[in-house]
Each structure stands twice: as structure tokens, then as C-alpha cells.
């Protein structure tokens, strides 16, 4: 059973160009039904039928968790990526019918927190928009620190500052502004939880700073961008199915397995949830483990792979599928 088996038919109700690299897409249920309720930090998987290729990308929900008549996501165009964001930007127009998964939350607020401290980099802002709406309604103190390259690229910076006032601090690289993590993290009240979503370097700095300041690990939450990387094509043998498949350069191993009609579990499609963990029967080569699920020991053993994001280079890879 996989979340993708239960897709919700939606119609694109609106497409808004937020800035030259970011578009917002709004979805309504095709029948006008209410969409499932969700919690801040949740994402949906959007299915894209791109000229014969079926792509499924996860995007954070940024709409209010308390509004069920529509969902909104924001997509940053990545011309070096696998083509999902390019498809969304170039092909998706209002009125188009698409399919999405039910919401999944791998980046939920810890509801025990006395205060939520949110740190966003670039497009990493999206889950926090829904989370701030939730925290605001629950009456729990929160603070957002939002860094972007420039004011023109900082999606929603103005509207968030208008909406949440003093709760929001903005930083633009091109103005020489940056978040002082040391000061920020050393001046929080007890019971604060910190959440970070943004580029890898930012996440690492926040986690390192929090750790060095003695923050409990359970109070530090982060979400990596969930996008399967591109790479060289490679061949895989699926042992149970008894077939060989080719994974294209802009395709994930998971997508190639699905395209072959072979059953496989999955949910987040971003290396975080662990659902697609697959046993490696034979491996003569190198697995590029791009997930956040397997630990170092498991990676080195080459006996497990997360097909949603990981790739292979070498002579032979055989999976228990």
C-alpha cells in the first residue's frame, strides 16, 4: 500500500507568478469537495504527466490548515533539476486537472513547545507559512527568521511581515544581512523548539550551533529540500520481478520501478519517511545514498537503498523487488 495509490483529483484554480523564479499553484477538489485537513509543515505529492513521463514531486502546503476549500503550494523553478519544477512553471495553467496525494507531515510542530522559533532559507519558507497560521490560532508564541538572496527573490516576505508584524525578521544576502545563529539560539526561553528549512549549509549551521549551545536534540527540527537529484542513467535488476530496468538521468529509481509496473511502497518520495527502504541483493559498485533515513553503518553495508532519492554507479545492482 502506498500513499500514491490514493490520489485526490484536483483542478488548478489559480497560478500566481510570485517573482521571476517562484510560482504559486492553488488546487481545488474537482467535485468542489473539502480537501483533507492537515497540520503545518505537511506536504503533498503532485503527480505530473509530462509527455509520457510520470513524475511525482513533494511540495509543502503553504495554505492555512484551517481552510479546506483549497490548497496552495509554491514551486521554485530549477532548470538544472529533473524537470518537475520546469513542468509546473511551463505547463500547468488554471483549469488543468491534476492528481495530488493526501497531506503527509514529516516536519510537524512539536505541540509541547512553549515557543516555536522558525528559520527559513529561500523557498524553505513555504512550510512555515502554514505553521505560523497554526501557531497563531493556537496562541503559542512564535518567531520567524527568513533569509533570502535578495528582496526580489524573497517570496512572501512583505505579506508575512504585514500579517505577523514583529514575529517576522527578514534578511537579504545582497544587503549584507544574515541571521546571527549564535545570538538567536542563545537568547531563547526554556521550552523553545527550533525548526529550520532551507539550503543544506543553513540546516547544518543551525543544528551545529544549537548542539554546541546545549540545546536538547529533541528540540531541534529540520527539513531538507525534498527533491530527487539528477544523475547518470544506470541499470538495475529487480530480482523478484525478474526484469532489468533502466533509470533515466532525470528519473528517480523509484519512478523507474513504478514505470515497470513492479509494486513498491513509498510515501514522501524525498528520502525522509523510510517507506521505500529496499533490500539490496547484490551490489558491485557505489550506491549514492541521498536519503536522510539510513544511518552511516547501513550506508556502508550496501544492503539497503532508498529508491526515491538514491542512485547507483557501477557494474551491477540487484534489488529485492
Amino acid at each position, binding site marked *: 500500500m502506498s500513499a500514491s495509490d490514493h490520489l485526490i483529483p484536483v483542478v488548478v484554480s489559480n497560478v500566481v507568478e510570485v517573482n521571476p523564479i517562484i510560482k504559486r499553484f492553488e488546487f481545488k477538489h474537482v467535485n468542489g469537495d473539502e480537501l483533507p485537513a492537515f497540520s503545518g509543515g505537511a506536504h503533498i505529492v503532485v503527480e505530473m504527466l509530462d509527455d509520457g513521463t510520470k513524475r511525482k514531486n513533494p511540495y509543502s502546503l503553504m495554505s492555512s*490548515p484551517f481552510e479546506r476549500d483549497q490548497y496552495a503550494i509554491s514551486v521554485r523553478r530549477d532548470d538544472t533539476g529533473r524537470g518537475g519544477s520546469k513542468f509546473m512553471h511551463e505547463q500547468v495553467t488554471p483549469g488543468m486537472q491534476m492528481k495530488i496525494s*493526501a497531506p503527509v507531515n514529516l516536519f510537524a510542530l512539536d*505541540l*509541547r513547545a512553549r515557543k516555536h522559533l522558525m528559520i527559513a532559507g529561500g523557498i524553505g519558507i513555504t512550510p512555515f507559512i502554514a505553521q505560523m497560521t497554526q501557531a497563531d490560532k493556537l496562541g503559542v508564541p512564535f518567531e520567524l527568521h527568513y533569509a533570502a538572496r535578495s528582496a526580489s527573490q524573497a517570496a512572501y516576505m512583505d505579506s508575512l511581515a504585514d500579517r505577523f508584524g514583529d514575529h517576522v525578521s527578514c534578511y537579504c544576502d545582497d544587503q549584507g544581512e544574515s541571521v546571527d545563529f549564535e545570538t538567536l539560539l542563545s537568547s531563547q526561553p526554556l521550552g523553545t523548539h527550533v525548526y529550520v528549512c532551507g539550503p543544506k549549509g543553513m540546516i547544518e549551521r543551525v543544528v551545529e550551533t544549537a548542539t554546541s549551545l546545549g540545546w536538547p536534540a*529533541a528540540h531541534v527540527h529540520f527539513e531538507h529540500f525534498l527533491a530527487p537529484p539528477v544523475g547518470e542513467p544506470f541499470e538495475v535488476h529487480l530480482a523478484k520481478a525478474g526484469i532489468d530496468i533502466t533509470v533515466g538521468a532525470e528519473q528517480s529509481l523509484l519512478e523507474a520501478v513504478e514505470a515497470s509496473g513492479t509494486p513498491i511502497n513509498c510515501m514522501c518520495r524525498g528520502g525522509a*519517511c*523510510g517507506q521505500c527502504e529496499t533490500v539490496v541483493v547484490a551490489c558491485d559498485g557505489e550506491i549514492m545514498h541521498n536519503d536522510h533515513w539510513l544511518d552511516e553503518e547501513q550506508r556502508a553495508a550496501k544492503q539497503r537503498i532508498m529508491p526515491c532519492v538514491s542512485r547507483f554507479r557501477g557494474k551491477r545492482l540487484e534489488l529485492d523487488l
Partner: protein
Amino acid sequence: MTIQFKDETFRGDFTYANSPSNIPRFPFPFPEDEYMYSTNIEPHHAARAGSPFENAFDVDEHYVAEMKDRALVLAEDPGRCQALPHMETAGWDFLELVMVSKARDYPDLFKLTMDGDRWHWINKPLQIDDTFTFGDSSTLPCHPMEYIGRQVQGDHAILDQRDGNLWMDAGIITAQADWSLDFDIGMNFFEWHAPVPLAHELGVFQRALKFLLTLPQGQPSRRLNWTLTVNPRLDTSPENYPKWGPDKLTVTPENIGEKIHLRVELQTFWRLPRSNAILFPIRTYLMAMNEVVTQPKWARRLHRVMRDLRPELVDYKGLSRYHPILVEWLSQFDDGAPTSPGIFPD
């Protein structure tokens, strides 16, 4: 079909019994002639009309009497219903799930009218007619979990999800098979399962936790668990052990058919939308041995399962005192004939 709700007791004079028509819909827990732990989880799809798997939250002839028994337990021991402060949103999720499901599945018994956040709920069997504001606990007489927990059969635990684990942070537990919410509250998945023998070594809990952490919204799952109880007593809690523990001494070969009850838990697992917590309903079904053996397949199979049960499980499930005479009693119904696969009667 209109359900005739029974007036019966689960304590004192123990008038609880299953109507003949209710017996075949019992969730008999053994799909094979032998039993061992497994992560026997399957999707909680609607299955088999008339079975307890037909609807999201099964309502049967014992509904009203069970809710009366719950009220008695809560009046004596309010600690059976506890929610840590961060679990209020989850309580509302639980309330919504039950009201929406019951109003859809049993429209002749339950009615829900929503006007934005203003909700009107009618529960005919319990004669409840309330209007409240969804999400505003001051408009209900108690915590939303307690409010709805008093109107739905089975115990309900709500598990918060964080740090890659599940935490027993809320529940309304009055019909338990010898475990205590008051003891387990705040524990994580491995802590509250620590007393279970054998299953840890089999890796059952690691697999189950991994499954539950990624349980998707709108795709509930279920499993069956079982034990035996002397007398049809719902409240077999550790807190009340002095009241029910001695019952085990009253079992004799002559009264075994009426005294010993097969106690089955239909456990379901639901991802809650706003809290991201997991709702864990534990719905208990009780059936006297005399009622079980009216179904020849169940009688044969129960004899074989009991006869071959591992000693660790006999001990853990608290059956040691009467296990030998039960096996002897059941043997009269087992002619050695093969049994058909699956749990439903022939």
C-alpha cells in the same frame, strides 16, 4: 437494519450475553489452527457486510450498555481518562473522525450538521443533542476526547508523534485487558510495550513502529489481538485487580462454558489530520465459550490454538490457572476434521 440495544451488565450479576444473531459477526481472531505473534496489520477497508469490519467504528447491540459501564468506571476513577496539555487538538481530531464516520455509517442513529465551526450533534441511542463550536473546548462539557470517548465503544489511546517515536500522551481507557493508562501516560512505544514477551526478539515492535510512523491520512489499518477473561467483565484493569483477579479461582470444568470468555480486541490505527497524532482505538468484543462453540469451525480451531499455545504466552496472558481444564473442555468439540482458512464461520 435497526439495532436492538441490550440492557445488560459487565459487573455484579453479569447479565451480558450475545444474541444468537450477533454470534457469527464476532471477530474470531485465529485465521489458522496455530497462533504466534506477527505484525498482522491489514488495511481497515470496509469488508464483509454485517461483520465488525464493515464500518469505520462498529456499533452493535452492546453499545448503550458499554457506555453505561464506562460512565461507572470514570465516576469511580477519573484517572482512566487523561490528556497531556498538548493533546487538545488531537482530541478534536478524534471527535471529528467519530462524528463524521458514525453520521455517515449509521444515519438512523447519529446526525451531524455543520455550519462552519458551529456543529450540531445528535446521538439518538444515548439521547444526546448538543451544539458546540468545533475547536473551542469551552463549548463542550469536558475535553473533546472525553466527550466523544463516552459515545464510542472501545478504549481509545491517542499517540503523539515526535522524535521518530510515538508517545502515549492521551487516552480514555476503561475496558482494558490489564494495562494502565495512568502508568503508561507519557511513555514511548518501546516503553509501554516493554512487558510483552517474545515479540521484542522477533523485531515485531520495530516493524510496527516504522509502519505507524508513516501511516498515511485516510488509510487506516487494523489488527486483532486476544486474551481470555473470566466473566464478561470489561474493566479488567490493574487498578481493579482485587475485584477481578480472584474470579480465576471460580472456574471449574462444570462452569467453564459460561465463565470463560474469549476477549478480542479490534485495534485500528488512524492518522489524525490537525495534530498529526495517531488514534488507536481498542475495541473489545466478549464471547462466552458456550457461544463460541456454537460455530463448529471456531470450536475445533480454538481447541488446537489453546492446546499448542507457547508457555510464555499462557503465562503472559494470565491463563495459567485454568488453561489445562479449558483445553480438556474444548477437546470434546474437536473431531480432528480440517478447518477452512480465515476467521469467518463456515
